[in-house]
């Protein structure tokens, strides 16, 4: 019951125990728990970051999609206007071509008419000459002359 050398023995045992508990129990386990705590915290922050990045990527993808749609619409509009333009050009070309053909035909016709007139004129002259010959072969009178001329005129 009394205080004795046992106290010293127990004191040494106690100090040794503290050292041993620290070495084999406290130090490794608390280091492990600290590491785990850090790992969990890191994981949580990483997941938070990932979530944020995912949100950014989603925003970016919608942006890209919108841009692509805009571009496609532009291209379609452009193509439409281009096709209209081509159509217009073709129509214009056809019109000018038709006009040209018509004009050409007109000149052709004019030329034909002129040629026919020319021919006619030479024929008329021939006829006139023949008529004159015939008249001259007969007695030339004013009356005859006159009738011959009027006859000519009527024949023209």
């Amino acid at each position, binding site marked *: 019951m009394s205080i004795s050398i046992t106290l010293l023995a*127990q004191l040494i045992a106690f100090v040794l125990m*503290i050292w041993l508990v620290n070495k084999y129990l406290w130090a490794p386990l608390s280091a492990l728990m600290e590491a785990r705590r850090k790992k969990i915290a890191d994981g949580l922050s990483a997941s938070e970051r990932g979530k944020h990045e995912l949100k950014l990527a989603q925003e970016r993808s919608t942006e890209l999609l919108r841009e692509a749609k805009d571009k496609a619409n532009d291209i379609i509009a452009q193509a439409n206007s281009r096709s209209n333009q081509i159509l217009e050009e073709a129509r214009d070309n056809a019109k000018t071509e038709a006009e040209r053909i018509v004009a050409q035909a007109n000149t052709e016709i004019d030329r034909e008419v002129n040629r026919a007139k020319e021919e006619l004129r030479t024929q008329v002259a021939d006829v006139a000459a023949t008529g004159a010959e015939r008249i001259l072969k007969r007695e030339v009178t004013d009356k005859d002359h006159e009738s011959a001329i009027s006859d000519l005129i009527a024949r023209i």
Partner: protein
Amino acid sequence: MATENAGGGPVEYIQHHLTNLSVGEGFWQLNLDTVFFSILLGAVIVLVAMRIGRSLRAETPNGLQNAVEGVLEFVDDQVRDSFGGRAPKIVAPLALTILLWVWLMNFMDLIPVDLLPAIASGLGIEYLKVVPTTDLNTTLAMALFVFALTIYYSIKVKGLGGYIKMFLFHPFGKFLIPLNIVMTTIDELAKPISLALRLFGNMFAGELVFLLIALLTLGASISASLLIWFPLQVVLDMAWIAFHILIITLQAFIFMVLTIVYIAMAHTLDEH
């Protein structure tokens, strides 16, 4: 009560149980049983710790590791509560050692009082006191170590001058210096003494109650009175064990918390 003449009588029975197995006389008396059992229980802690340490898993802790981690977390919380973060590195392992070791030593109280001494006497060992914390040497040794730590940290934090000033001007200011010295000295000395005596007293009393319960049928012959005493003994024993489980845990916890608090108090600069 049971028979007075058989088995040497109750007084002798109790005295026999309260005598340490020891070598040496007077101050040089070394209580072999106290030292043996405390070292044995310490070895149990260290061996279990090493066993856990071999298969430490950070991701998937197994059962035992989980349990120990729970205890560690609990101790760490206590230290954090008292120190607010900046505790010296020794405090947490010290507190953990006290909690585990004191609890295990107290636990020896729950082993039937006559079991181990009976085995020992069978092996030719006359005396055996199995609960190290019923030896004042054990509790006082731990309390004195804690006391030494509080003095060390007091001087480290406040400086030697600050530590002496605490004796001079606490608690009554600078006009009652002689009284202050007496008061503070008593105050400081009361810490380790109360720490040691509280644990020792509780365990000693608990052991004594177990002995008294054991006395109910000590040396009783087969008779009608045994029909009354034996069931009563069983019921009382169970009740006291149930209560004592609480006490041994509580006392280990109190010893740990007070240790933390005393060392934390040593770190406070101005106690006024």
